[in-house]
């Protein structure tokens, strides 16, 4: 895991490429697989409903894209990210079944004591078009 002291300003950090497959869309659900409420049937999970809605394929929830960004920052900053992180993300292009996406972050500024860091963040397809973009801020809590 990268530590906060090893992050380099203006360097882009990337998460792994993720395949947005139908099984991944079906399991991105608050209902456990096999439970009566699973699978959810909507334009995120059903090719038929997506087509009916005028979409070319099931569309990934923005929440799923956003979660990749949060996870990347957790990887970069460690467990402290979960008690001092903040993300503001705008969704700018739909992600469909069959797309590949990855989360990205660039450290824009930081201070040492208390540690405070500001990132430009985004999520991109494998043609490098952005599907979501925004900012993330980490502020070290009083307890460290």
């Amino acid at each position: 895991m990268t530590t906060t002291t090893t992050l380099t300003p203006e360097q882009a950090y990337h998460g792994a490429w993720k395949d947005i497959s139908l099984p991944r869309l079906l399991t991105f659900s608050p209902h456990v697989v096999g439970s009566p409420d699973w699978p959810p049937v909507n334009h995120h999970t059903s090719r038929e409903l997506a087509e009916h809605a005028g979409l070319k394929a099931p569309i990934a929830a923005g929440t799923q894209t956003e979660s990749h960004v949060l996870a990347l920052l957790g990887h970069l900053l460690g467990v402290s990210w979960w008690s001092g992180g903040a993300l503001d993300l705008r969704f700018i292009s739909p992600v469909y079944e069959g797309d590949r996406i990855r989360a990205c972050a660039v450290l824009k500024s930081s201070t040492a004591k208390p540690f405070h860091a500001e990132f430009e963040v985004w999520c991109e397809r494998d043609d490098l078009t952005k599907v979501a973009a925004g900012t993330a801020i980490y502020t070290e809590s009083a307890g460290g």
Partner: protein
Amino acid sequence: MASYVAAHPLPDIQVGMEWGPVQVEVTEVLNEQFLFAMEDYGSEYLPGQPTPPLAHPGTLLSLAMSGIAGFRPAEGWTGMHARDEVELVRPVFVGETLTLRWQVADLYDKRGRPWWVRECTITGADGQLRLRRRIHTAFQRDVSAEPAE
């Protein structure tokens, strides 16, 4: 094909309206489901560490949508998740029972479209806040809908 477009997508919604509370346990099975969905098997999310596994952010954000995901706007309108703000206050670990609450935080018009902001708060069994999320949704008229006469 819709032939009617309501005057507003949220005719009965007011700022301050609340949903919940709902209690949910972050089970190992649920969290592992999200590790699959996210293709993310980071060691911090898996058993076998000195501390309990962290709940994956996908698990938490999905739970934060769970109480409001079934909402449908008025006829002839479609909602789009356009922006999201998340404040991480304390980590959530597998095995915790969480309490989720939702509230309408804002209603406004921007660039000719109605928007609303729903805020979800997640607290732990100790009553302390774990996460706050603000979900911004913009509405547009259905492509297939015709304006009401």
